């Protein structure tokens, strides 16, 4: 299978503190890859490096076919990103938000219009098109935010705890959108706190104290740790942490 993220011996140090301790993993095209870990385990640091926002201390990294050290601009053009805060402008309308984010990825006006129409139809938001985002319920914002993150058809989309503060039904609907995107060949790299969501991923990695302690399909992980669900797997691993909160 084609690899879209290749990480070999990634180390990131902040002075004496080692945030990422020798990470090695690959992510395949079209895969939903769960990136799990307790707070402070080093998830965010690793994700920032993969998004070309910060430089690793050492290691070999390739994202979307480009080198993290030298081709940051190319990486940025080929990935999408959605943060836990949904990152929409509340004083802009639904359409203007789409237009803006598509615009900063350099899409032409014609394509922007075309994709915006499709997106609005797909999300059943036709009536909301010209309403300010501030008037939208949280669940709709979340779906809109995700759709905007992939409007430029990136190879990989990074989702940073995309389902925080949303009810279970909306979360389920949101995962339907994620599956759609994955079926279209977009690789999903997702961090989450919800262990039931970990079950939805094709493969899951669990970080403890800056290291990847486990990486496999949810089924195999459950077998390996002799656990009933991912929650138990996570707790068993998190107990190993030296810096307990």
């Amino acid at each position: 299978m084609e690899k879209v993220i290749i990480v070999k011996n990634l180390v990131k140090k902040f002075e004496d503190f080692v945030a990422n301790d020798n990470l090695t993993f690959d992510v395949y095209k079209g895969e939903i890859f769960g990136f799990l870990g307790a707070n402070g385990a080093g998830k965010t640091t690793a994700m920032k490096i993969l998004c070309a926002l910060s430089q690793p201390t050492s290691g070999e990294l390739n994202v979307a076919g480009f080198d993290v050290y030298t081709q940051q601009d190319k990486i940025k053009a080929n990935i999408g990103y959605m943060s836990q805060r949904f990152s929409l402008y509340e004083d802009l309308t639904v359409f203007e938000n789409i237009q803006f984010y598509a615009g900063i990825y350099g899409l032409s006006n014609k394509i922007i219009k075309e994709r915006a129409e499709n997106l609005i139809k797909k999300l059943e938001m036709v009536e909301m098109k010209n309403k300010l985002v501030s008037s939208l319920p949280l669940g709709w914002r979340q779906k809109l935010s995700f759709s905007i993150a992939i409007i430029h058809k990136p190879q990989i989309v990074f989702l940073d705890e995309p389902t925080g503060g949303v009810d279970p039904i909306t979360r389920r609907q949101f995962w339907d959108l994620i599956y759609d995107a994955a079926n279209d060949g977009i690789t999903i790299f997702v961090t989450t706190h919800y262990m039931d969501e970990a079950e939805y991923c094709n493969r899951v990695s669990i970080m403890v104290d800056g290291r990847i302690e486990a990486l496999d399909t949810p089924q195999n992980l459950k077998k390996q740790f002799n656990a009933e669900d991912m929650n138990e797997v996570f707790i068993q691993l998190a107990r190993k942490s030296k810096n307990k909160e």
Partner: protein
Amino acid sequence: MNKFKAFVKKEFYHIFRDKRTMLILFGMPIVQILLFGFVITTEIKDVEIAIWDKSKDEVTQKITNKILGSGYFKLVKNIDNEQEIYNAFKKGTIKEALIFENNFAQNLNNRNNANIQIITDASDPNIANLIVNYTSAIVYSYTGELNSNLTIPMQIKTESTMLYNSELKSVFMFVPGTMAMILMLVSAMITSIAITREKELGTMEVLLVSPLKVSQIIIGKVAPYIVLSIINVITIIALAMSIFHMPIVGSLSLLIAVSILFIFMALSLGILISTVTNDQQTAMMISMFALMLPTILLSGFIFPIENMPKILQWLTVIIPPKYYISAIKDIMLKGSGLSYIWKDVAVLFLMTLVLLGLSIKKFKIRLE
């Protein structure tokens, strides 16, 4: 370039949709200039004075008449000893006392100089300053007449002309200060708030992950404010000219060029503030205390720098609006060209460079 256009367009949406921003951007300059123009004037009229004429000759009489005839001063009493002066000041019956020395006319003729002592009530330093200026201007105009009589005997000029702002109209003095304040407000405070807002909303993260370069984000953020600040400068000048009939002696283009330099300085300050804080509230507080207060208090806008305690005078050296106000005052009221104000401009330019470099460096560090 398309990316950048999309960004600037979004920025204008933010501005035009936020009523408070709009109010500050367009209401504030108009209110400020009218307020300072009409209310906080320090024009003087019928200032109570006392005169101690030790000489009582023809010349002192002429000068006294000239001073009293100006309309600015009103003689409360003639006095003949020092104690009386201090008593009058203490009671507050006079604002100024003039003392002509003994043998005034004789000294003037023989030694070519004679002395008038001016004592003012400096509990209000601004007024005191003005009164001294008015009085000495009148006296100078008299000596001017004398001198011109000496060189070209038949010519007698009675018209007193004071250089620069001949009527000393106070509103003109406030125009530069108001401009500095408004530009600080718009360029530094509003930009710092606009940038920290993106951080607070979490949209900054998304912008940084996008193909936009950091420089494009910063320039896109501040570009609309450059345009709006220039509009503000033009509005203030137009108001000052049309309502208060302020003459602009110097070059209008130089005035605007210096203003643009100051706008860039203020924008750099705004960016710098936004790099050290993550929320709008803090950005606003820092702008208020670190920018607005010094602009109002230490720039010479309201309180003359020469009247400040020494320590504060040293402090004013690092206050950018001081140089801006000094430069545009000279352009507007004296008609000075670049050759005269180049020192102020150079200082401003240097400050801009340093601040801009510092803020870009800090912005990059924050990304790590």
